[in-house]
């Protein structure tokens, strides 16, 4: 495979794409690698969507019920955006460790996604300030308070005992400490990887074996252990901010489930970005069907992993049938919630699964745009199903009449995702779309093999 392509490694190193190739030979590396102007238009559109939906969301402030739901919907939107950012960091590190051309082409979009972290950092503040309204452990912070709440019938005995038991971890101060640690680690990794990525391209020795080797080993050595720490940090974060909404429930696979969900969402955003960009240079000549196909397979794998972990968790808890655990599912299935549950399974798994089985669709640019968009939407249903039923009491039913506040779960996450997207697109246009000081860059320019 090697010799014929060697000359292109040279071209990249000298960043002078010279003419003179036969039309059979590999493509030429585009001279301008920055994002096309059209990204600005997309950003404007995203901002318009964000403003419109934020304005609609503001209407919910008018009623008490609306305000309650607004905050919960904010949590849902926040977690969706957090999943994009965390997922992109995880995927960025994974591709440094695993290699593969899918990772090379996706690298810069992933980096741009990670650089939206300031939004996540600021976005946590409302949740921290209003945590009393969301979490029982924040509403009742001492033994006396929980006992009092129990006597007043605000919480059950089980909840009262569990809150007391978990106060070491779940109370305002420990939670803030843990959040700082988790965010500190994540922002450090984002800073480091982004900085190195630029330095790698500016390396004076760029294009030499020594430079390739140095950077590959560096990124590998940092990313490997960081993935492990990231998974631990993520687990902690989702236990605190999502799982603890159901204070009694405990499930050990929760962290991994979120990890997979992050991969699911991030890949959808990544594929969408690449396909849309590929209508213009430079992605037009860089993004090959082969890599799209590989990314599609990866997305399919995450779709499968997601249902696998979700179903396995359900089956284990369903079979065990222990009151502490099964209540979680009863709140999420009974009282009309089976519609949402079924919708979640269908949109989050059945439809993407069936569509992505087809090789032709995975290779089709126009169709994959719709698949990726649909999957981002499915993430919203999933997060809604995870969050809102936490406030269900036995006998509650899901209804819309008189409960219009629940519509905030549509408007708020859409506004937040749109705002996030605008920020992401800003970051995307800040750097060249391809990391050139990588020996595999040349391979992206090769004509596609039939297989």
């Amino acid at each position, binding site marked *: 495979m090697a010799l014929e392509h060697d000359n292109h490694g040279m071209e990249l190193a000298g960043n002078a794409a010279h003419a003179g190739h036969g039309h059979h030979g590999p493509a030429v590396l585009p001279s301008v690698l920055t994002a096309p102007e059209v990204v600005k238009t997309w950003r404007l559109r995203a901002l318009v969507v964000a403003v419109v939906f934020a304005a609609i969301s503001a209407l919910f402030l008018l009623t008490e019920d609306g305000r309650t739901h607004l905050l919960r919907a904010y949590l849902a939107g926040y977690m969706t955006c957090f999943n994009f950012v965390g997922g992109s960091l995880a995927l960025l590190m994974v591709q440094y*460790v695993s290699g593969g051309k899918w990772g090379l082409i996706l690298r810069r979009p992933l980096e741009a996604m990670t650089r939206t972290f300031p939004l996540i950092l600021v976005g946590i503040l409302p949740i921290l300030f209003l945590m009393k309204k969301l979490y029982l452990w924040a509403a009742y912070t001492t033994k006396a308070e929980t006992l009092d709440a129990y006597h007043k019938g605000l919480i059950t005995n089980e909840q009262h005992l569990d809150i007391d038991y978990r106060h070491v*971890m779940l109370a305002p101060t420990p939670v803030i400490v843990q959040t700082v640690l988790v965010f500190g680690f994540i922002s450090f990794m984002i800073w480091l990887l982004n900085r190195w990525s630029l330095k790698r391209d500016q390396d004076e020795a760029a294009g030499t074996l020594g430079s390739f080797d140095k950077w590959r080993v560096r990124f590998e050595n940092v990313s490997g252990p960081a993935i*492990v720490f990231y*998974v631990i940090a993520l687990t902690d974060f989702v236990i605190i901010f999502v799982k603890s909404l159901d204070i009694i429930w405990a499930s050990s696979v929760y962290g991994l489930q979120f990890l997979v969900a992050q991969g699911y969402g991030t890949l959808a955003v990544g594929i969408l970005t690449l396909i849309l960009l590929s209508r213009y240079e430079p992605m037009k000549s860089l993004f090959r069907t082969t890599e799209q196909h590989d990314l599609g397979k990866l997305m399919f794998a995450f779709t499968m992993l997601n249902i696998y972990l979700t179903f396995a*968790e359900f089956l284990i808890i369903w079979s*065990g049938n222990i009151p502490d655990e099964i209540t979680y599912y009863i709140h999420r299935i009974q009282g009309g919630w089976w519609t949402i549950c079924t919708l979640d399974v269908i949109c989050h798994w059945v439809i993407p699964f069936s569509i992505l089985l087809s090789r032709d669709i995975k290779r089709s640019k126009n169709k994959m745009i719709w698949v990726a968009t649909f999957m981002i939407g499915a993430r919203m249903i999933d997060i809604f199903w995870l969050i809102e039923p936490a406030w269900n009491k036995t006998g509650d039913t899901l209804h819309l009449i008189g409960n219009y506040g629940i519509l905030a779960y549509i408007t708020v996450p859409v506004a937040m995702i749109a705002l996030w997207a605008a920020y992401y697109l800003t970051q995307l246009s800040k750097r060249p779309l391809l990391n050139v000081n990588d020996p595999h860059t040349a391979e992206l320019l090769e004509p596609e093999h039939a297989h």
Partner: protein
Amino acid sequence: MATQGPIHDQNEVLDPMLDPRTGEYLVIAPGHTFKSVTQKIAGIVLTPNTPWAWFGGLFLAATVATGVVIGITWLVLKGVGIWGVTIPGAWGFAIINFVWWIGIGHAGTLISAILLLFKQTWRNSINRFAEAMTIFAVCCAGIYPLLHVGRPWLAYWLMPYPNTMNVWPQFRSPLAWDVFAVSTYATISVVFWYIGMIPDFGTLRDRAKLPLAKYIYGILSLGWRGSTRHWIRYESASLLLAGLSTPLVLSVHTTISFDFAVAAMAGWHTTIFPPYFVAGAVYSGFAMVLTLAIPIRKFYHLEDLVTERHLDNMAKVMLATGSIVAYGYGMEVFMSWYSASHWEFFMMWNRMFGPMGWGYWMLILTNIAIPLSTLWFRKLRVNVLYLFILSFIVNIGMWFERFVIVVTTLYRDYLPSSWGTYRATKWDYMLFIGTWGMFTCLFLLFARLAPMIPMSEIKMMLPGTKIHPGGSNAEEVTQEAL
């Protein structure tokens, strides 16, 4: 078009096993042609001079394997009572070894299926014997549940078939799921393995000198003649089988984890079990692939085809899956606190500091501490001797994992009055050690009689495969000469 790759320092001496373009380890050593690959791999099978060491190894393995024959005979004569399984430790070695062996098998399927889907071409050198390993490991694993049912001659009752007793399997039991999972797994693995060997059997048929060998390989090859239309269908089928095996391998160990997890037992009933069992299985499987690959590449001089790249990658996979396993252990400990369940907490305390606590610390030492602290270093990842030793350590660790899971939960459950202990008998050990011999025997026979490395897949990775428009072969020749 005559420029070279990256600029090389003139004094720089490149390791021939490194890719001069990227500086990464090569998958196949340079200098191989289609012919040399055929000669090398087919030569191992078709040589008239079987190495004496092979006979020696087979004899030794067969001696150990008599443990299986004796162990099973005595068990059939006397009953499962000869084993250490009793109340409360009713699962004992039978289930520990079953899970251990089947877990080892999973790396084979992973290598042949998942890595094929993700175009990790380095797998081509090791997938065949990894698949063989899968099948032999499943053979060893299958012995245990069949014997553990008590009356192995009635094991067919597990299948749903119309019978005069009018009794049927109960599909809400994970043990019934196991029957389907393991038998499907065995069947599909054998089919996948055989389909993979058809073209290579064709090559052996064409090159065999002995009429009998020609005849047998001819039948096994089904008359394969390398027709392009056949190849396209064959490739399509291989990819589909890989696509089916991937979820299959996940489901098999998941189902095995359900054997534990769906029961409301402290230490078993936890939702992380499925992914962490699968990761553990792959972990031990890759260790076993290393245990086998390292001596084989040395003995048959296959260093060109099973290169440092393979060792490095396998060690990396072990690092990744080992980390997932470590995460699983961590979550178990964390959840024993977070769940706020007295029983969970006691189980974890008992697991660590109870009378059998040594098992837990052995597990942490061999499965987590030693491998996960050393595999981060690239020097150690390509150190053949270290990896060989480590592969044993990890498999010991993974055995202890199942030991800890099975035994600690059972011997001290909710009711202190029913507490007991577990002790394996000499028959347990005899059968277990016997299965090692059986596994080695089967593997040695395979290494002698079938192509260990898929020739056609290796050829696909050679430089000579490049297609030049216009059909000129001038460049081709220079490439092969390199």
